[in-house]
C-alpha cells in the first residue's frame, strides 16, 4: 500500500471512531517489559554478609558457599566453654547494599549465644537513648521483636527501655561479634539456621 492511500485510510478511521465514542480513548495497550533478577553470593548481595578481611576469627566463618555459615564446634576444633563469657570479635560484616535505610537484626540464635554490633560499625543510630542501638543485634539480647525501633516510650512495659536494632543507610555496615555468657543449655549442640533480617525502616515497628 502506498503512503498516500494509507493516510487517507487512517483519516477516515479516526473520523469514524470519534463519531461513535466521542472521546479520544484508548482501547487497549499491551507492552512487554524486561525483568531481571540474579542470585548473588552473600558477600555481594543486596544484604551483604561476609567475613572480615584480616580477622583471625574468619576461620569460624565459611564463605565458600552461596550463603555464609558459622562453625564453632568440635568438628572445627573448638567449642564454647560452659559457664563462661566467650567473645568472638570481628566474626561477620553485614552491609546494606540496597537503596534505602533498613533495620538489621538476627533471630533464631541458641539460648545464651548472642550476636552484637561492634563500635567499629557505621550505623545511623548508635547511642544510649530510646531509638538508639547500644550493640544488640540478636533477639535474645536486649532487643524486642515488637519494638525494634524502640520509638514509642509509652508502648508496653518494654517501651523506650530497650534498645533499637542498628539502622543502616545504604552503604552502612555493622561488624558483628558473637558472645556467650552464663549457663549454656546442657549439651548445647546447635546445628541449624539463624535468620538475618533487614527491613525498610518505615516498616519496622
Amino acid at each position, binding site marked *: 500500500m502506498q503512503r*498516500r*492511500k494509507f*493516510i*487517507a485510510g*487512517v*483519516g*477516515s478511521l*479516526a*473520523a469514524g471512531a470519534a463519531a461513535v465514542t466521542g*472521546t*479520544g*480513548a*484508548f*482501547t*487497549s*495497550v*499491551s*507492552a*512487554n*517489559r*524486561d*525483568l*531481571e*533478577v*540474579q*542470585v*548473588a*553470593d*552473600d558477600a*555481594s*548481595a*543486596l*544484604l*551483604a*554478609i561476609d567475613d572480615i578481611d584480616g580477622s583471625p576469627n574468619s576461620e569460624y566463618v565459611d564463605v565458600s*558457599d*552461596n*550463603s555464609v555459615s558459622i562453625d564453632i564446634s568440635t568438628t572445627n576444633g573448638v567449642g564454647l566453654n560452659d559457664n563462661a563469657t566467650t567473645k568472638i570479635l570481628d566474626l561477620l560484616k553485614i*552491609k*546494606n*547494599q*540496597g*537503596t*534505602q535505610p533498613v533495620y538489621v537484626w538476627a533471630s533464631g540464635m541458641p539460648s545464651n549465644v548472642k550476636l552484637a554490633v561492634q563500635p567499629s560499625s557505621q550505623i545511623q543510630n548508635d547511642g544510649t537513648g530510646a531509638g538508639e542501638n547500644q550493640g544488640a543485634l540478636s533477639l535474645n539480647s536486649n532487643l524486642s521483636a515488637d519494638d525494634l525501633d524502640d520509638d514509642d516510650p509509652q508502648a508496653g512495659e518494654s517501651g523506650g527501655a530497650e534498645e533499637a536494632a542498628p539502622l543502616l543507610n*545504604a*552503604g552502612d555496615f555493622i561488624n558483628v561479634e558473637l558472645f556467650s555468657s552464663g549457663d549454656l543449655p546442657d549439651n548445647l549442640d546447635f546445628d541449624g*539456621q539463624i535468620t538475618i533480617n533487614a527491613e*525498610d525502616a*518505615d*516498616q519496622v515497628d
Partner: protein
Amino acid sequence: MKRRQVIAAIGALSGGGAVVTGTGAFTSVEANRDVSVQVADDSSALLRMAAAGEGNDGYITTGGGELGIDLTSDNDAVGGEGVNANATTVIADLFEIQNQGTQEIEVEVTPLSFVDADGSDTLLVLVVPQSSFPSVTLGVGETETYSLVVNTFPGGNSLEVDDTITVTGEATN
C-alpha cells in the same frame, strides 16, 4: 483490487444515487486528514509505567524510555549484585501503572511469577499487585502499585531470571 478500480466502483454507485435524489453527484473525493501520533516514554504514556517513588526506584531502569526491573550486577544504581541466597527479599512498592487515558481500563501484568531451578536450588520471583489480583480495574487517573517478592531456596548463584513481563491495559466496555 487496484486503486483505479475502487474509485470507479464508488463513482458508479454515487452516480446511481444522484439520479434518484436529484443532487449534484460527485465521482470521487480523496481527502487527507491530520493524524498526529507520538510515542512517549513509559512515564508519560497513556498507560503510564514508572518507578513508584517509595525508596526502591534504584531497581527500576528506564533505558530507551521503557520501564525495566533490574536486580543484577548490571544495575549500577544498586550496590548489591543480586538477591541473597537462602533468603526472602521483598522490594515493596517497586513500580506503578496509571491509567492516563480517558476511560476505565482493566490492567493486567503477566506473568506474575517466574521460576529458575538448578538441581534443588530454586529462585522464585513474584510480582504482587497491591489492591487486586491478578488484574485490576483502573478508572481514569487511577494507579496500581506493584511489589516484588523474591525467594531463593536454598540458593545457588547460577540462578537467574531474565525474562519479560507483559503489561496490558484494555478498556472495560
